[in-house]
């Protein structure tokens, strides 16, 4: 079973914090979509078995017309074997939502939405340079909740200049709609973003990790009370509403990434497409190469298993490491983990190693300490 990820590399405007690949020059939209169809055709042989998830990410896929989305879905159905109740998600921005579009998306086969709300605070939305406002956040969410049973909302916390109270307010507002799935991300300052520049030039206060941690605690606390499962550092779901697409990343399952900058994984080799719309389109047009690949060594796979495992409620599976990578890796992991288990930051059962609740916000750092480098 695998997933197909389609990267729609266009946005109306650039959010200050964003370092995803997108362009605001919509005139290239048609050629890029054409090239993506080409890529889909070219790579149909790479997928073994059924396609369990299709995910339109970006960028802003909700910019697309419903028939453009539909065209992808039917192309995939034609060229690949799609599982009956496959999860088909569309990432959408609140300013793109209205009754008729929602209906149209449903009609072409979308059965899950992921809504980029980020915040319900007007100031914060403006500070982040989001395309929507507070009022649109509310109306979009209400509309979505009305039409979709399976959906998710994205939220951002740790915003400089805002308070934990504001974060709690945003959370409470969100919970008022009783969403089945919430993704909440700590605002991070990425290289070469407007946000980085604003901080460097003193136009914005810097992000603070104590603030982020406070917000993270509020998040865990509130969502625990509201009976969500904290199944991945940034992802919370009601029973049965885990994002199948995202989970496949964490669980080391294969996925096919289509479009500029999209990543693919076949269980052994990772590949990433060029991060440039024009280069991507031209290469596909002329049959030139447009991606790089990296075949994972056992050590790479071990490191990835630890890194992804420690972020999820399923932990790192000793069994998988032993069977799929090798017993020496299992031993190494157990040795490295010992001091963290003693400190109470990690815990284990017979089969798995988990991050303790109190140490979740350090999960990546701990994973790094458990890594194996080539010298060892």
């Amino acid at each position, binding site marked *: 079973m695998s997933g197909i*990820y389609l*990267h729609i590399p266009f946005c109306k405007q650039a959010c200050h914090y964003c*370092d*995803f690949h997108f362009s605001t020059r919509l005139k290239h939209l048609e050629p890029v979509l054409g090239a993506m169809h080409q890529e889909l055709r070219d790579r149909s042989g790479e997928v073994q078995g059924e396609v369990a998830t299709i995910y339109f*990410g970006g960028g802003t896929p909700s910019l697309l017309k419903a028939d453009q989305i539909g065209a992808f879905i039917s192309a995939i159905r034609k060229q690949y074997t799609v599982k009956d109740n496959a999860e088909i998600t569309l990432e959408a921005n609140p300013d793109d939502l209205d009754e008729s579009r929602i209906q149209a998306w449903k009609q072409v086969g979308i059965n899950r939405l992921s809504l980029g709300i980020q915040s319900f605070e007007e100031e914060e939305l403006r500070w982040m340079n989001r395309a929507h406002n507070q009022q649109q956040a509310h109306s979009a969410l209400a509309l979505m909740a009305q039409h979709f049973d399976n959906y998710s909302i994205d939220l951002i916390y740790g915003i400089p200049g805002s308070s934990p109270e504001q974060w709690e307010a945003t959370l409470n507002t969100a919970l008022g709609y009783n969403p089945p799935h919430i993704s909440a*991300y*700590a*605002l*991070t300052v990425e290289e070469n973003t407007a946000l980085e520049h604003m901080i460097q030039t003193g136009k914005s206060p810097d992000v603070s*990790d*104590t603030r*982020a*941690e406070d917000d*993270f605690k509020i998040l865990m606390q509130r969502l625990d009370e509201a009976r969500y499962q904290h199944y991945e*550092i*940034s992802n919370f779901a009601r029973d049965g509403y885990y994002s199948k697409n995202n989970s496949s*990343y964490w669980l080391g399952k294969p*996925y096919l*990434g289509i479009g500029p*900058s*999209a*990543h*693919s*994984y076949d269980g052994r080799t*990772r590949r*990433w497409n060029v991060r440039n719309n024009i280069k991507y389109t031209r290469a596909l047009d002329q049959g030139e190469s447009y991606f790089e690949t*990296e075949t994972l060594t056992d050590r*790479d796979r071990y*490191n*990835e298993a630890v*890194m*992804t495992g420690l*972020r999820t409620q399923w932990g790192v599976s000793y069994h998988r490491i032993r069977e799929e990578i090798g017993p020496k890796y299992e031993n190494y992991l157990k040795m490295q983990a010992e001091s963290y288990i003693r400190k109470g*930051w990690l815990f284990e059962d017979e089969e798995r190693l988990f991050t303790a609740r109190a140490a*979740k*916000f*350090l*999960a*990546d*750092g*701990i*994973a*790094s*300490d458990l*890594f194996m*480098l080539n*010298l060892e």
Partner: protein
Amino acid sequence: MKHIRNFCIIAHIDHGKSTLADRLLDHTGSVTDREKQDQLLDNMDLERERGITIKSHAIQMEYVYEGETYVLNLIDTPGHVDFSYEVSRSIAACEGALLVVDAAQSIQAQTISNLYLALENDLEIIPVLNKVDLPSANPEEVTDDIVDLLGCKPEEVIPASAKTGLGIADILKAIIERVPAPEGDPSAPLQALVFDSVYNPFRGVETYFRVMNGEIKKGQNIKFVATGKKYDADEIGTLKLKQQPKQKISTGDVGYLITGIKDAREVKVGDTITDAANPTTQAIAGFEDVKPMVFAGIYPVDTEDFEELRSSMEKLQLNDASLVFAPESSAALGFGFRCGFLGMLHMEIIQERLEREFDMTVITTVPNVSYLAYTTKEPETPLIVNNPSDLPEPSTLSHVEEPYIKATIITKADFVGNVMSLCIDKRGQITGQTYLTQDRVELTFDMPLAEIVFDFYDRLKTVSKGYASFDYSPIGMRTSKLVRVDILLNAQPVDALSALVHFDNAYDIGKKMCEKLKELIPRQQFDIPIQAAIGAKIISRETIKALRKDVTAKCYGGDISRKRKLLEKQKKGKKRMRQIGNVEIPQQAFMAVLKLND
């Protein structure tokens, strides 16, 4: 003999000595086009990369002038003050010196100190006004400066450009006409001055010498006067771009000698070579055992690499005899070496060579100078303190003496105030202020050498906007009120971070050290208190707050690779750190005190 000219090129750093040497080699046809490259004589990797001369380099040229063939022995010298002893020996091997002065920068501190060295050795000085091609050159004014300094005629100053080749023929002409031919007695017993030595991994140590009297023959049994050791001259020759073996080298000439010596320490720059059977009665004056000025601990990052570090240091010493070291141990860092260096540049070079040539990643501790401590029990016997931890307990300590230097700084009149307050801040006492020209001032201070080690060069550069040059020479020991400031991390003293400082500055330095360490030690998964203490008394404290977030938010469209690589890098970074107790300390932290004002 009357067709030999021995001369060196001396100047302040970067005034163009090595480039001028290139032009002289071109002009005399000493190098083929294929062999040409910039600063050809700077043949060490490190020299080429940094664009500085670290060692003296000698080369022989032939030049036909007015129908007669002359042999010109050129010695290019390093400009940096750390190597001034080597420069002095190169000077002693010559009859003349090209004093190169940058036409844009005029006379600087090392121009003067090297000039005095040359004058002490009665060298004929040929002033060369270099870089006249520069748009910023100021030839008239700088010529006046030179005339004032030397008391020569303006016509004697040769305008030149080592870049364009202007003036090179004039320089060669002046060398032949103005530099005296060597004198000496060809029939006297051999007496030759060692002015440099180079380590060659295949052939052992190559000794560069100048024959003052007598002659040296291939196969001759010779003796080094200072070390008393005897060898056979397996090979001798002259120093063309490639060495040219010869049967003998006669009075007045310059050459190289190979005896199979494998350890650079056996060849001392400044020593006298003589005949073993029929020795000269006179050693050449001016020989000194070079003494290290600055000491620091060098430790392997990984404790297990101690033996490997030892063997690397030994190999390094084979070709750099001025490096001295002795094993020591530190509670914090384990086993390592206390090393003595000629100065801060030399220390940097050694550290870099260890990394580059021996692949050794090392931790260098806070450098210090060599103190003498007197205890109340034995007030007559000084204890040498090369390491802060050797300082006796305050209760048993009578007093401490520290090395002083005479510091010479040349700067623009505008910056005199800034430079003075810096030097006074550095415990300097002004001893002289001379206007070299209307705009350029020479300031002299008596100053503790230790203050040069602590963040002096950078600050001098800052307060003078780069318009200050600096030189120094030791002037002996003086009594001083010193204390040891200790640093505690997580309540554990870290001996490798201790520093000896003057009592008056101790509080300020302690505070800045804590602040600096707070900045340099990455946050870890727990709070780390940092304290500075004198004895049992805590004088300053800071806390590195525990890391509270160590996850990145989103994994971009399944970009697991990028995230994995990021975390791999994070782990690698930690591997380069030294674990002390449960705190990981990066290498730079050990040198933190040097940069307290950044």
